[in-house]
Each structure stands twice: as C-alpha cells, then as structure tokens.
C-alpha cells in the first residue's frame, strides 16, 4: 500500500529516487555507506523500520581498527590538498585579471590595499610575460561566438519586419 501510495505523489519514492543512493550513481558513493538504510527504505516508499540512528558520543567510534582505511583516508586527504594547491596555482598564473578584479572588490582597508597592490603587480607581470593575453583572447572568441547571428538572419529579420516590430 505504501509503495502504491508513493507512486501517486508527484515526486515520490521510486526506482529513480532509490537509485540515487547506489554507489556510482548516488550523489556521492561514500565508503561510509548509507547510515542505517532507514532513509533508503523510506525513499523506496516503505516505512522505515525501528532501526534508529544514534545521537551518541564521538568516542563510540573512535576506536575503530581500520588501519588500512585510515591510511587510505590520509593518502586521499594529502592528494586532495595537493590537487587544490596546484589548481589554485594554475588560477593564480592564468587568471591574474580575475584575481585583480576580486582584490579590487574587497572592502577598503590596509590589508586589502596591500592585496590590491600585489594583485596589480602580479597581473602586470603576467601581462608582460604574455600569459594574461591568452585569457583575453579566449574571452574575445566567446564574445564573437555569442554575437554570431543565424546564417539567414536577414531573412528572419525581414520576416519580423513584415509582421511589425511590437514595442
């Protein structure tokens, strides 16, 4: 009955919603997995059983053995930090104009003044090296693309003129 009920509401628990918790298709396929499966059952339209969540203290799970899991986590965290730092460096180098714009938008104070001056210098350097020009060329290309009319734009405009421009 519950399953039947769920099918009638606009959004309810269906294979689509249930599938969202499958590894690889879920929002995130966490190794922690679904906490207790209660919500997943509810998403499928079945009232969750009385298996409840715990609001217990942290110490209960602190003693988990999982040395391999710990090592994998540490490795992933280290990798994540490096990924973010390298990505930040790429942005600093190739998006100096964006950095300058951001710095200039900060509320005025002594710290932001230093930041603005540094960002200006940095952008100047990137311009001299020629890196900043690459981003500018891409922006110009995108602007051209945005402005592209249809091949038969004249005919279409003429059609519009015949029907009368409404204003």
């Amino acid at each position, binding site marked *: 009955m519950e399953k039947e009920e769920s*099918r*009638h509401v606009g959004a309810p628990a269906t294979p*689509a919603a249930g599938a969202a918790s499958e590894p690889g298709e879920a929002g995130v396929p966490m*190794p922690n997995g679904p906490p*207790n499966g209660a919500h997943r059952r509810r998403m499928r339209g079945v009232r969750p059983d009385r298996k409840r969540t*715990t*609001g217990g203290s942290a110490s209960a799970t602190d003693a988990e053995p999982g040395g391999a899991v710990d090592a994998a986590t540490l490795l992933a965290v280290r990798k994540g930090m490096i990924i973010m730092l390298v990505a930040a460096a790429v942005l600093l180098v190739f998006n100096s104009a964006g950095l300058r714009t951001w710095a200039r938008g900060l509320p005025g104070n002594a710290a932001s003044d230093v930041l603005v001056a540094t960002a200006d210098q940095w952008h100047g350097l990137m311009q001299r090296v020629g890196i900043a020009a690459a981003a500018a060329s891409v*922006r110009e290309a995108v602007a051209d693309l945005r402005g*592209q009319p249809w091949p038969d734009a004249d005919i279409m405009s003429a*059609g519009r003129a015949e029907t009368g421009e409404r204003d």
Partner: protein
Amino acid sequence: MLFPTFEFGIFFLLIFLASWLLRSRLDLRKMLLLAASYFFYGAWDWRFLGLLALSSTVNYGAGIALASLTDTVRRKWVVGIAVALNLAVLGFFKYYGFFLTSLAELMASVGLERDLPWLDIVLPVGISFFTFQGISYVVDVYRRDVDPVRSPLDLFLYISFFPQLVAGPIVRAADFLPQLNERPRLDQHILVFGFLLILVGLFKKVIVATYLGTEIVDDVFVFPQRYSSLDLLVGAYAFVVQIYCDFSGYSDIAIGAAALLGYRFKRNFDRPLSATSLQDLWQRWHISLTSWLRDYLYRPLKGNRRGQGRIHLNLMITMLAAGLWHGAAWTFVIWGGIQGAVLVLERTIKGAWRRATRAAEVAPPSQPATWVGAARSAVNAALTGPAVGWFVTFNIFALAAVFFRASDLELAMDYFRSLFSFTGGVEKCTPFVAFLVTFSVATQFLPGDLLSRLARMVEARGPVVLGLLLGAGMLAIETIGPGGIAPFIYFQF
C-alpha cells in the same frame, strides 16, 4: 559567500585542511564545522545567525522533550508545537507580506479598505531549507524513526552544515546524524568524484545558467511584448534549462564539497529534463524536497485508502504546497496548481489506458491481424512512446515555468499573449542560446553514472596531474563565463 568565488575557494581550502587535521577528534571537528557554517551564513547577513540558532534550539529541545515522554497525547502536543513554531517563523519571514497583500486586495474588492500592519521584512537566506530540515528531524523523532540527538552540537551542525545550508539539498537527520559520529573517511574515488561534481556544478552555474539568464531569459521576462513567438518559446525553454543548471549546479557543488569533507549527501537531481512524464520528472527534480513533501505532507493526508478523488485532491494539495514553498506569490501557487492538475490528468489517462489495455487483452480477437490492426498498433506505440512523452512533458513544464519566472500574473499573461500571437523573426534566440539549450537538454540523456565512471578513469593519476586538470577546468569556466556571478536562484526560496 557564493560558491563560485575566490572567497569560498579560500574558505573551503582552509576548512578542508583543518577538518581533516581534526579527523580523530570528532567533537573538535564538529565544533570547527559548526563555526565555519555560522561564519558562512553570517557572511550573508549576520543578523539572522540568531534565527538559525533559535530554530536549532527549538528543534533540539523538542527532540529531548519527545525522548522523555511516553504519553502519546503529550508527544503529539510537543511535535505539534515544534512544527507550528517552525512554520510560524517561516510564515512570518516568507509569507507575511504575501498574506497582507492578498488580504488588502480582498478587502479592497469588497470595499473594506483598512490600514494593515505592513512590515519591511527581509527574507533570511535559506530559511525554507533549514526550517524543513528542522521539521523533518522533529517529526522523525516523534515517529521514532530516529533517536533524539543528545548533543546540541550534532543538532546545530545538522541544521546549519554550510554546504547545504542556504539552498539544500534538504538533508534528512537519519542520513546525516550517524555520519557525524563516525570517523570521517575519504578515498581516491570520492575525492576525484567530489572535485568532478564541483567542476560540473560550476560549469552549469557559471556558464549555462548565467549566459542563458543574461542572453535571453532576463530580457524576455521583462518585456515579452517586444519579442517574437519563437524568442518567447525559446525563452521559456531557456528558463527551464537555466533554473535546472542553477539549482542542480548548486546541489552538485554542495554534494561535492560535503564529500570532500567526508560526508555523504544523496543526489538531488537525476537528469529530470529527460523525463517522459511529469510524474517521472518530479521523481528526478529536487528529489530532497519532493521526498520531503511525500513523507511529511502527502502520506499524512492518507489519501490512498479513500478513493481516487481523495488521491487527486491530496496530489493537488501537495503540489500547491510545493508551489507556495517556492515563493510567496500567486504565480507560484498557479505553477503548483498546474503541476498538480497535470499529474492528476496523467494518472487518470494512465489508469484509463491500463483498463483499456487489460480489456483488450481479455477480449477474444474479433478479427484476424490485418494491416489496419498493425497500423493502429504502430500509431498507439508512437503516441505512447518515450519521444512523445518527453516532448509533451518538456513543453508542459516549460510553459508552466512562465508562471514561475514571471514577476506577476499580468506579466505571465502578457508572455502567453505574445507567445501565441505567432509573430515571426528572432532576436534573442541566437545560435549561442540555441546551442546552450540543446546541449544542456542533450546531456540529460547521458548515462546517470557517467561522472562516476569518469572519476574511475582518472582517479589513479597523480595529484599534480589532477590538480592541473582541475585548475584548467576552473580556468576554462572562469574565462568562458561572463564576468560577475548572479546569486543562485534558489537562495530566494
């Protein structure tokens, strides 16, 4: 603090580092994340930090009270009061002005004009989301689906966790609270998957949603009379794609950011623009809200045991509530009403179709199979096929979205008048706009696990290579995207 900004990038980098340094000290980690969440929310408007804390306190207190009570009547009182308080706060901030405006119009229509207590109320960002999370917690505790939280830290963090605080997804206590008390984990796949989700979310928001907004949607929804029917039709399509990319982009970034911090959120969108019926679409669109409405509104209405009429009525009530949740205006109510009406219609047609098919199956064949019969079958198959279903669903959803986007009813009616005046010419529907709309809709038909597969393909690469890829992706988005980022549309809800 918007997600696609330098500020958030720096903020997230620091929180990522600090939270993993505190990995084995769960309480300290939670304190850090709570402080970060309040800082994140305070960056919008610090005045509402008290409201967020009050909402958390009320729900925490209700949970504790429910835990100490065994008497059913008293438990009902407690849950009733807690839900009423949550809704009162939401009602005051979100619907007070709408209520007074409607009341004033009603009174004026019967010649009873009075001074009403108007207030200049600022809508706290994300109030609909954290209120719904609070209600779901209290009701789940009342239903004994979750245990009440003893630690206020857990409850406060559940309500305010920054990735989902201002625009969802609406996370359930049963999903999130247990994760707070497990040692957080991360592996290469989740790491890369999280970054990919963030990248996809940024692409959707910064490029697709922002360009569609500035290139066509904003203009056609201000002066629809100025544009041709084709421009307006594409404008409606573009708005659907814009709001999808805007909101699902936010959800992607939120889910990705939470994953990088070691927490799992469920998917909030599942390629809804490929849906072949409105029911299908609502099972894929804003899943956390629609499942919330199902569990806390539709099911308590208990329609299924009382006949078709009652089921249809409850569907309408649920979808009207969904409309009103999105905004305090009659346009949203009408939008919700259209969704409900079409869902009822779909249900009715499907029921009639099933009955007819069953009757045809049990009836003896009246004539041997002929080319007429074969043709009839082919026509039936075409009419009920997924392509027709998708086309009808997409168009109904897009046309209904005019009410969602229009600032008032008059403008919505102007839009439809101009749309159906069948005037020629194109001005706003440029090849660029057409490409963005077509490309975005086409991606909806790709496999749902594509991103996960992609993550599997690249996760073994070294961090420097992945960092270069991430940096290049973000750089491309920043460079291709227009300067300046508009706030996410769902912040206003």
